[in-house]
């Protein structure tokens, strides 16, 4: 298996982007955007995460199986969160008192 060595330049670029995104996320938090505040904060966090996974963690050059493993992790986290929230969000939907 040939090992893919990432050039230092790439790492430095990612570092710079990550640090700028951190500054941006703080800046954005102090602006009043309503609901968009949360969406912006989470979007930036997701972008940062994707960069770390793809470059620092070398997922970009990893096998499809590794991609699958990572995907499984997020899908199952999604199951946990969405089916739990499904309860909290839908309280009262069907007009039953207290439920």
């Amino acid at each position, binding site marked *: 298996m040939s090992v893919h060595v990432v050039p230092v330049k790439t790492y430095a670029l990612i570092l710079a982007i990550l640090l700028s995104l951190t500054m941006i996320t703080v800046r954005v938090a102090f602006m009043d955007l309503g609901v968009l505040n949360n969406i912006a904060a989470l979007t930036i966090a997701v972008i940062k995460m994707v960069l770390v996974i793809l470059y620092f963690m070398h997922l970009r050059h990893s096998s499809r199986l590794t991609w699958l493993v990572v995907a499984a992790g997020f899908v199952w986290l999604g199951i946990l969160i969405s089916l739990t929230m499904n309860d909290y969000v839908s309280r*009262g939907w069907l007009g*039953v*008192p207290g439920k």
Partner: protein
Amino acid sequence: MEELLPLFPEQASSLAASVDALYFFVIGVSVFFSVLIAGSLIYFFVRYRRREASQVGSPVHGSVVLEIAWTVIPLAITMVMFGWGAKVFFSLSRPPAGATEFYVVAKQWMWKFQHPEGRREINELHVPLGVPIKLTMTSEDVIHSFFVPAFRVKADVLPGRYSTVWFAATRPGRYHLFCAEYCGAEHSRMGGWVTVMEPSEYERWLAGESPRRTLVATGEEIFSQRACNTCHRPDTEVRGPSLIGLVGKQVRLTGGRKLIADETYIRESILNPGAKVVAGYEPIMPTFQGQLSEEELVQLLSYIKSLGKSAGGESAR
């Protein structure tokens, strides 16, 4: 024989028969498939027993048609179960409009009941025959569960919120009341009896005790004793919002979120008023945490609910 070895519970509520019908359907399907599987196993077991030591099975590998058949047919049957089950569940969950409201406070290890007329009972509940009764229940400590097998009803009773259960009894008698959610040392003794009486007899039973105030009247007294009426008043909404017709209405909170003001919301707003403040008001209400018992809260609640009714009926959901 029946008393020594009962095999099926009595049907004593308006919904018991529909639950049992559904149960028999599912059990019927189960018996059919169990017999089918067991019968085939035994038949093959005898028919295809090994006759010589080196014999091997025939090269039968599978059949896509069969696979599809025994995927689709069970799926169809289970969807019927689901649909039918959901229908029964909805009717078990939704109390009919106009059901008489009783209140229940559970604690380790007893059930405390309050009739709307003000009569209270512990571990005994007397109800009139044929009248739909809605229980609004809460717990003082851990999770309990209100369970009357003869009525086929059960609902967990949680601390910090109200849950409901409803039934209309169809046969006079005494029926077991159980706590079905494990709640500590004396869990198995946290039970009692539900006594179903003819309405006239029930009236006599209610009157048997010296006259006492109704729940609503007691609630009203607490409302003025605790000076709730200095801010929550019908004439002005400067300091606090009016409570008339509040229950079941949608309210807007500071921060823009909207919710339906149900019993649990009102309870929370009394005990922890800062959590969900109505838009346009300052969070100036003091907390009543630790100052009102669950019973008193329930009385207040029934008073607040009565405010809606006197001022022109149920408000739209």
